[in-house]
């Protein structure tokens, strides 16, 4: 008797109950299933080089970047004239539209109350990443 109990104890196992399966008609949709749209794939196709930042201030208001919004920055995109970039100018972060004007590069705000910043040749300047999307809470 004891031997039997021990053997049962050794061989018994828990079978988890995973999923409800329709016992009646199989769903006609079952072979056509697709995963739901994944927003993270839309917003960050290159996840390892993408960062989320928060914008404070209204100098980019007219580029759909209100104060307090989130922005998606991809560091793998090469900066180009017309791109909205996260730049580091003399050690400080800023976000502006990068524009080539003749031989010079300019950081252009999107708000008439702000002045464009001409990047002088001796400035310590670097583009940190290119902004690909902004996320604005409309509630």
């Amino acid at each position, binding site marked *: 008797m004891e031997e039997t109990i021990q053997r049962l104890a*050794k061989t018994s196992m828990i079978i988890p109950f995973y999923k409800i399966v329709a016992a009646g008609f199989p769903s006609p949709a079952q072979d056509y299933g697709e995963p739901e749209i994944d927003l993270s794939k839309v917003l960050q196709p290159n996840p390892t080089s993408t960062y*989320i*930042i928060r914008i404070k*201030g209204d100098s980019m208001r007219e580029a759909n970047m209100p104060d307090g919004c989130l922005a998606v920055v991809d*560091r793998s995109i090469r900066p180009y004239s017309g791109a909205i970039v996260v730049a580091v100018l003399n050690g400080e972060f*800023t976000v502006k539209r990068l524009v080539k004007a003749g031989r010079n590069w300019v950081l252009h705000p999107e708000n008439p109350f702000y002045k464009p910043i001409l990047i002088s040749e001796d400035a310590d300047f670097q583009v940190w990443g290119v902004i690909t999307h902004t996320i604005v809470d409309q509630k």
Partner: protein
Amino acid sequence: MIALVDCNNFYASCERLFQPHLADKPVVVLSNNDGCVIARSDEAKAIGIEMGAPAFLMEEMLRSHDVAIFSSNYTLYGSMSDRVMKTLQMHCHTVEVYSIDEAFLYLYDMPHIHYEDYAIQLRAAVKATGIPVSIGIAPTKTLAKLANRYAKQYKKAVGVHVLDSPAKINEVLSCSAIDDIWGVGPQYTKMLQQHGFKTAMDLVRAPEEWVRKNMTVVGQRMLNELKGIPCIEMETVIAPRKNITVARSFGQLLSDKTDIAEALANYTAIAARKLRKQHSCARVINVFLQTNNFRQKDPQYYRSINLQLPVPTSSTAELLQYATKALDLIYRPHYNFKKIGIILMELAPDNQVQSGLFDQVNRPRDQRLMTALDAINRSWDGKELVKFGRQSGNRRWKLRQEKLSPCYTTRLQDVLTINI
């Protein structure tokens, strides 16, 4: 060929990415509890800050050189490491993540690539994550390590060095010190120096017989690797750990049992979560408690105890029960305790557990509870939203982390904020 990709001053680079004004400034990162220096930028190395130096002894020096100091933010470093490793995996099938900031890439199945160009491209791809790396490529892991060192030291601008000819291998061997060799620790260094060895080249020229006699089979393997014969395999599958230890110093000395029990409960919860993550159960737990042996005026106490569990388990609830029992057995009042730890031992896969005949615990229910607990806590921005009562209290044990940077990549409330 094998590549070794190594992040440059990894922890300092993680902090700098989000604070670019620190680009040319000395940066140091402190250990848990802000105790001593565990990472330095090149500028910090240049002004003579030593690895392991206690922070409180250097306050004046750190201030006078305007050194940026950070508490270690392992949440951030782990996330950045993940980005780097994922990028490497996009460029190579076989990646061995060797440590938080190093990986070996197996290139023998990519014989047609131009190694130097490949490495330069790879370096640029990883740079997009924000972390600068150096890359060494060579026929063996041990040589790849040396090539990497060489790239860091002599080819900083390119950050890449390929050992694709005997001449290049010899050059690197001649300018690598004996203790730069992977696997040569302080003891072998001492022994080899006593026998007049200075560079890796000296070791390669030593008779094989001598190496086998004085450095066993380990030395023989090292010798072959240095000669370009691969002997150390790629390890791409992470073996489940045999023990899980969670032990940390308190932010301040503690005597009160309630405070210590609270710390132990939290460490136990962490250990149990790790245990479940690798699908194991523990058969034995060890709890140890110790005073600070650097404070010589204080009476000293150290005790450790093993408890055998009736049935191997991974349930936090059950482990807490035994951890508390262990503390009851080893705790003594009136000491200034510095540290407590728990080690989960004799781990077995959780699907091979035999339940005891007189087992009173409802194991399936416990298991479901733990699964739910882990799922909830995973989905809440790294916060432990649901926990056991024993884990809450006045948190006197908490680590000192006065210079902690935000978790920029894992918590929405911590993302980089830019004033524009």
